[in-house]
């Protein structure tokens, strides 16, 4: 049933311009940043781009765009109204929508990161054979966690909280304080080689990202199962 229900977010993503434009736009931006880093001659080009424009801007906004497109620009509950009217259980409809957004975001973030890695790799970066899979794995996890996080934001009220969650991620995640534990940014930056998030080890940050992924998904489904008229 989940696969059947995922047809709607897939159709929204593939048939509406909103989904493609966001993904292509942010991918192009990341590629441009990588090309600039390569041409500038950064020794650790991947580190520079991933911890800079990609980690801070592209990963969250690419995911935000994908989540928004998967939900048709609406809140989670409003986005599953049509499915619920056809007889889908609201919780499963919400689960299918958020799971699709998580999968699409994870894959998109991983692909963009792989592209950045290949283009911007410099002699100061770790060997490409080890750097590429590590970067791709972090981006994959970051994409999934960000999508679950924005999915939870979309399930609150009419969906406008999605934007607030993005702002919170930037504000709290950048501070490195206690609040950074609750948002993906601090952990993602830590895993990309940046400062530790609230002095937690990178292993703990990766575990917390996985916990965040499941926790925010559960929160989105729980809030999204309340059926709209």
């Amino acid at each position, binding site marked *: 049933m989940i696969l059947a*229900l995922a047809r*709607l977010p897939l159709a929204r993503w593939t048939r509406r311009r909103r989904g493609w434009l966001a993904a292509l736009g942010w991918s192009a931006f990341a590629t441009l940043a990588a090309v600039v880093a390569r041409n500038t001659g950064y020794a650790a080009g991947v580190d520079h781009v991933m911890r800079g424009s990609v980690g801070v801007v592209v990963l969250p906004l690419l995911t935000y765009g994908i989540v928004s497109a998967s939900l*048709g620009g609406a809140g989670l509950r409003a986005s599953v109204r*049509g499915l619920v009217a056809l007889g889908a259980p609201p919780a499963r409809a919400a689960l299918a929508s958020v799971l699709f957004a998580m999968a699409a975001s994870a894959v998109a973030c991983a692909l963009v990161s792989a592209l950045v890695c290949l283009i911007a790799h410099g002699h100061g970066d770790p060997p490409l054979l080890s750097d590429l899979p590590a970067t791709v794995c972090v981006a994959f996890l970051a994409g999934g966690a960000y999508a679950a996080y924005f999915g939870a934001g979309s399930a609150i009220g009419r969906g406008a909280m999605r934007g607030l969650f993005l702002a919170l991620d930037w504000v709290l995640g950048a501070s490195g304080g206690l609040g950074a534990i609750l948002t993906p940014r601090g952990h993602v930056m830590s895993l990309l080689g940046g400062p530790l998030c609230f002095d937690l080890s990178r292993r703990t940050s990766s575990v917390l990202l996985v916990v965040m992924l499941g926790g925010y998904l559960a929160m989105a489904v729980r809030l999204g199962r309340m059926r709209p008229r």
Partner: protein
Amino acid sequence: VLQDATLTAAKGLLAILGTRNDSTTVLLDLIDGTTRPRSGQVRVLGGSPEAARPRVVRVSLEAPLPEAMRVDEVCVLSGELRAEPRALARDRLDILGAAGLADRMVYSLSIEERRTVSLAIALTSKADVVLVEEPLASLEPVAPRLAIDALREKAKNACVVATTASSRDAAAIADELGLLTAGTYRPLERELLHVGSGGSGSLRVVVSPSHGKVGAASLVAALSSEDAVARVETAAYSSVASVDPKAAAETIALVIFGPDLVALSRAVTRAIGATRVDVELVEPAPQPLDAIRIALADRPSARAG
């Protein structure tokens, strides 16, 4: 808010008269599990509304459908979600004459088209409970005529609950009637649709196109001398059974009001006989919703209660 609503619906078609302000939507929300009652109990198919959810289908006024999908894809998805045997989308939609919408994207549909699709899906589903808001309103032009038969057919094997503010629509489809007034539900006898307070009522006379305006005028002249007639109005003839819009435009309907429906019937019969006007139809005209409420409130049992 629903405050006093006790009703049981079985196989057949229960039409509940009332507006959204009377909590008709809340009543359907309770049945399909969208809302939980603060007090009291709702049982659907012997269990909770949530448990019965896969066997309940609802057509609301907004008729939300997955906007990024094609109509035929929506029909297929609906069947899969309810584990129904696969049926051709065009066949499902054709029940309301909407097969032509099968290839359209949902976001391109008007609200009337969307409601027609929703109703067609509901009526061709295997659901045991069908909840419909305004079953004959906001539909494609040919759909209301077909919807009456389709609703009746569905009601043979399912419990169909329809809410409507139109007493005429309720009279056209219902096996049983109910009235929801400011959140209070009462069963409604069919005669109350037609007989107003103190036995008053109205008759609708449809003059055939062959006699047209001249026939209608002579009929009005004959009725003007009858004591049983209080007033006569011309009305647009937009019968749900009319298919040809040109013929419908040439047909004139008179609505004749009187304080005593029985005397009014005799007077109208006399007038038709005297003028020899060719009429297509004489039927009691359903009372407006407010008149039904007044008639119900005026009944001795209502006063005692």
